């Protein structure tokens, strides 16, 4: 039994196919005015990487400040601005679009056997809206920042700060529409553009996950939009909707904001779940255990996710009755996520497991997301939450699920589909090293934060009691290692564009329509419309294909 499933073509004779979506047309305009979902995915990949590094630098600044108990690296006001921008950039400009806009855009049409998404022009519009939102965020940073926290809590954001709430609000509003249009495009495409034979239950679970996330994007994001409009009106005109003096209620903002922002976390994680389903299956050489359960649990997460928003508001003055109801519902929403983890674990059982880089990130995901998710259940219990809210426990919880979970899934996906997108393999050894470095760095950064939270260190504070310093120093040390772990992929993936091994169409010997076409794909994806005649993750079918394959001539 070999220790790797990678099967590359003979490097001495292999070539990147001359005609592919990259070489089809040349010139900047052909990229900036493209309708090709694959090109738009690449445009997104470049832009979100850019914003990831901005958000990451801001994180570095936070950790640097927190090396010492006093607020000595920057003024407390500045610190407030730094963590606010870190949150805004990472959430709206990185996490929300990460997998859907890059991998989802690239793969969904191919996975369902279509030539493109249903609405290519809207897809391009999505990218431009994202870029405009991003530019506005940069403008905000350059012109003095905003210090309300990414949650824009009223009445702080409407009445008491004189920082750039308006431009940040506008940026988030515009980026929100980018997200809405992406989700709309995905839903329409998945419903209407599947090739003959591609029934709903033959779809890869990656597609199901994106479908569920898209429902959330389409129904949830407009509520954020109206919440921002109201903040803007309150701030400029003084309408009074969030002002108790005029009869309004700041809590109304909280309800509207969290009605989106809780589903938003599922928007962020569901596409990651989709990636994990694909990688776990490929690197265990086994169909995903309980396909139907995993598919339906994605939709269940989307539906239940709409009913738990007030668990972000336990201490804000909602009634005890509401606290009770939302706490119970929060327990319920953990169940579908747990179902997925169980199913993925059962997929591994008796599988032929190999440890290429995407699988390393997948294992990292399984462990770290489980910890993050379980701590979420602790927080869902309102009694615990009252003590732990607004402490570093919360910070650790969401970084475990978002960074330990989502970001690892994103990296797993990037590595897994890199050969398909570029036609070249990344260098295996250094990438495995980077995955391990990331894992170690992550744990060192964020695990101490759980302890800090239970000990009582509050979040969003530049200064803290001296007894917390040791754990903070560990955390900053971990952040440095984590930074190295994230920098490495940028370097070797860029290197691989020119020097990587030629991958061929199916280096992972994976199932799925995307692996049956050339790497990089043609602009129209398929030469002829495929007809789907087998189930998803059908490795027997793949073996039969290989048996028929012609590998040499004469």
């Amino acid at each position, binding site marked *: 039994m070999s220790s790797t499933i990678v099967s590359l*073509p003979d490097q001495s004779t292999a070539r990147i196919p001359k005609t592919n979506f990259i070489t089809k047309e040349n010139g900047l305009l052909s990229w900036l005015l493209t309708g090709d979902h694959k090109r738009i995915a690449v445009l997104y990949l470049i832009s979100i990487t850019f914003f990831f590094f901005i958000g990451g630098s801001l994180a570095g600044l936070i950790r640097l400040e927190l090396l010492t108990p006093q607020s000595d690296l920057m003024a407390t006001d500045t610190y407030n601005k730094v963590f606010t921008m870190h949150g805004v950039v990472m959430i709206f400009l990185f996490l929300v679009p990460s997998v859907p806009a890059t991998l989802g855009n690239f793969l969904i*049409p191919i996975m369902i056997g*279509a*030539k*493109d*998404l*249903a*609405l*290519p022009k*809207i897809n391009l519009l999505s990218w431009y809206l994202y870029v405009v939102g991003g530019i506005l965020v940069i403008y905000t940073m350059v012109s003095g920042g905003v210090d309300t926290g990414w949650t824009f809590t009223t009445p702080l954001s409407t009445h008491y700060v004189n920082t750039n709430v308006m431009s940040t609000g506008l940026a988030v509003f515009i980026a929100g529409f980018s997200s*809405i249009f992406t989700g*709309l495009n995905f*839903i*329409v495409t998945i*419903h*209407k*553009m599947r090739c*003959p034979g591609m029934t709903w239950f033959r779809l890869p679970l990656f597609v199901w996950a994106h479908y569920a996330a898209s429902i959330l994007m*389409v*129904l*949830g*994001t*407009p*509520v954020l*939009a*109206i*919440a921002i*409009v109201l903040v803007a*009106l309150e701030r*400029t*005109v*003084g*309408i*009074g*909707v969030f002002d108790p003096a*005029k*009869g*309004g*209620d700041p809590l*109304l903002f909280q*309800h*509207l904001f969290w009605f989106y922002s809780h589903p938003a976390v599922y928007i962020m994680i569901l596409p990651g779940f989709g990636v994990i389903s694909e990688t776990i299956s490929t690197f265990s050489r086994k169909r995903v255990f309980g396909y139907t359960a995993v598919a339906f649990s994605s939709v269940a997460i989307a539906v239940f996710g709409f009913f738990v928003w007030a668990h972000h508001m336990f201490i804000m003055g909602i009634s005890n009755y509401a606290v009770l109801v939302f706490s119970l519902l929060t327990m319920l929403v953990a169940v579908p996520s747990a179902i997925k983890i169980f199913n993925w674990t059962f997929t591994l059982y008796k599988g032929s497991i190999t440890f290429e880089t995407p699988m390393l990130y997948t294992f990292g995901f399984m462990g770290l997301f489980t910890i993050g998710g379980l701590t979420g259940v602790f927080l869902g219990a309102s009694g615990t939450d009252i003590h732990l809210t607004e402490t570093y426990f919360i910070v650790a919880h969401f970084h475990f699920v978002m960074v330990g979970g989502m970001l690892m899934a994103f990296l797993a996906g990037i590595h897994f589909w890199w050969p398909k997108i570029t036609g070249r393999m990344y260098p295996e050894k250094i990438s495995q090293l980077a995955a391990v470095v990331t894992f170690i760095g992550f744990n060192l950064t964020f695990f101490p934060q759980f302890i800090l939270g239970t000990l009582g260190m509050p979040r969003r504070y530049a200064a803290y009691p001296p007894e917390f310093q040791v754990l903070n120093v560990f955390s900053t040390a971990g952040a440095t290692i984590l930074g190295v772990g994230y920098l490495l992929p940028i370097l070797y993936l860029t290197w691989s564009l020119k020097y990587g091994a030629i991958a*061929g*169409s199916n280096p992972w010997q994976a199932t799925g329509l995307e692996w*049956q*076409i*050339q790497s990089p794909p043609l602009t*129209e994806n*398929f*030469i*002829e*419309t*495929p*007809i*789907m005649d*087998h189930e998803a993750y059908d490795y027997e079918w793949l073996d039969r*294909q290989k048996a*028929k*394959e*012609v590998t040499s001539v004469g």
Partner: protein
Amino acid sequence: MSDSPAIANGAAVAEHHEHPPYQRHHFESVEQQADTTNFAMWLFLLTEIMFFGGLFTAYLILRNWYYPAFVEASHQLNIFWGTANTAVLISSSFTMAMGVWSAEMRKKGTLVLCLVLTFILGLVFLGIKTIEYKEKIEKHHVPGFHYSLQSFTNPASDPEIYKEYHDQPMALDMARHTELYFFLYFAMTGMHALHMIIGIAILGFMIFRARAGAYTTGHVTFVENFGLYWHFVDIIWIFLFPLLYLISRHQ
């Protein structure tokens, strides 16, 4: 790197099939394109419902809390203009539906007439809105811009309205809440008017294209989908009208 046999050998789709010029290349048929864009428009309308919904929520909560203020403030709205606007918008929905029918029946002249009528009715709606807004501005009932409580603390100072409703003078704190009513009035009708303006602009473009015969050769999806948008804007007004104008006219 051979292509998998699972990929069809040209069975379902002929290599050089004729397709109408308006069919985009990633669609297999005109029917698929029409179905898909129709579904996309419905999804977009769903996002619009969720967007407007936030304002409806704010309205429901604040009206429940400050009912007397909302009643008296709503008396400031002219029921004649409001009813007229409702009738105008319903008529424009009718002409729009007739426009879609004309496109489906390939009657170019009728289509252009219906679109022009819809356009004009839309402008009439905005005109009436302008009259109403002007009145609010003159009476200082715009939140945040020298908002005046006089009409509510001393209703007799507003003879036309006082004649009809005989409102009682309100205590100062309840009178202050009328500003919230007017915020909702301007926010909701303003957002609605913004959607009308966008719709009218697209109508203008459509009239131009309809005269060139673009929609009467079998490709009706643009008109159909725009019709959905226009009816949706009408539905929003169908709810705004009773909620803002008809809170209570019997007191």
